[in-house]
């Protein structure tokens, strides 16, 4: 299964490439527009600030190629910051435009629980995946993932899709539902790190490669 990982100059890409290889992927790391557009499967990874990520894509002329790829109907997976960049706009350190592939906003994770207690930000650690309201996992990358499966998250911002139908899985943090996986057709985002979520995470990546 061939898969291209977008290299746009940020973050550690070694773990995500290794995890995809472990799942049987034949991985190409690329910052080249034509390679990205022609990819059979595309992964948009990322850690760090939203504006740095979008600038990294822009400076390499990769915004249009990723957007064009997404309209091809082939599978695209955004991970962590990569998922956030799928949205329309982010409020992290000002207001920044995203790729607009899944309409929605990137907002701060609430620093108070639903009953008003202070809670730790960033949200770091293992948290359980629960189906978003009305979401069915049967035809998604979570097809083989049991409800409640814990995955590894590190983030201070999260996506709120305009259309709740684009939410696939949430996790609960201080009583708040945080969108943890989103999708619109073949474009999928996960806020968690499947490459750091043990065997459960590898199973999700394998499912993506088989989609």
């Amino acid at each position, binding site marked *: 299964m061939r898969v291209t990982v977008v290299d746009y100059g940020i973050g*550690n890409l*070694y*773990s995500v490439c*290794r*995890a995809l290889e*472990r799942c049987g992927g034949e991985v190409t790391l690329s910052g080249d527009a034509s390679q990205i557009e022609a990819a059979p499967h595309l992964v948009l990874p990322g*850690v*760090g600030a939203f504006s740095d990520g979008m600038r990294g894509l822009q400076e390499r002329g990769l915004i249009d190629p990723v957007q064009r790829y997404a309209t091809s109907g082939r599978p695209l997976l955004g991970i962590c910051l990569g998922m956030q960049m799928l949205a329309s706009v982010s409020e992290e350190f000002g207001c920044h435009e995203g790729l607009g592939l899944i309409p929605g906003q990137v907002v701060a994770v609430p620093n108070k629980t639903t009953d008003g207690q*202070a809670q*730790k930000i*960033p949200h*770091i*650690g*293992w*948290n*359980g995946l629960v189906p978003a309201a009305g979401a069915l996992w049967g035809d998604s990358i979570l097809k083989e993932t049991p409800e*409640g499966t*814990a995955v*590894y998250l*590190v983030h201070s911002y999260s996506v709120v899709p305009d259309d709740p139908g684009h939410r696939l899985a949430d996790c609960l943090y201080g009583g708040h539902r945080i969108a943890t996986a989103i999708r619109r057709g073949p474009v999928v985002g996960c806020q968690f*790190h499947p*490459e*750091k*979520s*043990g*065997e459960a*995470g*590898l199973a999700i990546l394998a499912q993506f490669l088989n989609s």
Partner: protein
Amino acid sequence: MANVRLIARLDIKGPNLIKGVHLEGLRVMGDPQEFARRYYEQGADELIYMDIVASLYGRSMLTEIVRRAAHDVFVPMTVGGGVRNVDDVRDLLRAGADKVAINTAAVRRPDLITEVARRFGSQCMVLSIEAKQQAPGKWEVYTDCGRERSGIDAIEWARSGVQLGAGEILVTSIDREGTRKGFDVELTRGIASAVSVPVIASGGYGEPQHLLDVIRDGAADAVAFADALHYGRTTIAKLREQALSAGINVRRL
């Protein structure tokens, strides 16, 4: 409450996994890669690698050990020992580490904490505090692998470290390390109640009750285990079961 993390800690010297008592009397255990793979398979929530003599002797083989680990280990890895500047941090993150733990260099130059947090995010910057008790309620920070006194109060240092940008604190009790007498619950609680970031307790596990004590009374967000795992006295899977049956939230596998 978030899931408490169960962490396997691997202390490294040169190419080897080693184990000591009070950070001294080191014994070679073997190839760290074999142990890391085993702990990943047992369901460890995270691994910590510490090159425990790197701050004394400089350059270490840690980057290579981490790169090999990232080949087979798909949970977060924290790496420390001999990290002196932002370039060292970058190299370790590129090799597959998710966070770095810094003790000696941060005590010598506290601004390093801020530099690392600004460049890579505070979630990458773990302040490692190795402390010895001086008096009831008083612990002193030690550097250079437990050899040098710093004159700094551990709880005060945790507080200022977080203000400077540390996103997590790894607390190692030198008094308890390798003794199997239980974690220093008071030290852990003192630090956990002084800071808003997660605290990892390390040093002293001997029996299941110690785990429950350091979580319930010590308010630890994560607990690290070393020789109990290396010598096979327990496994991550057993610890997870014991925590679950005591009603503690841990990741369910």
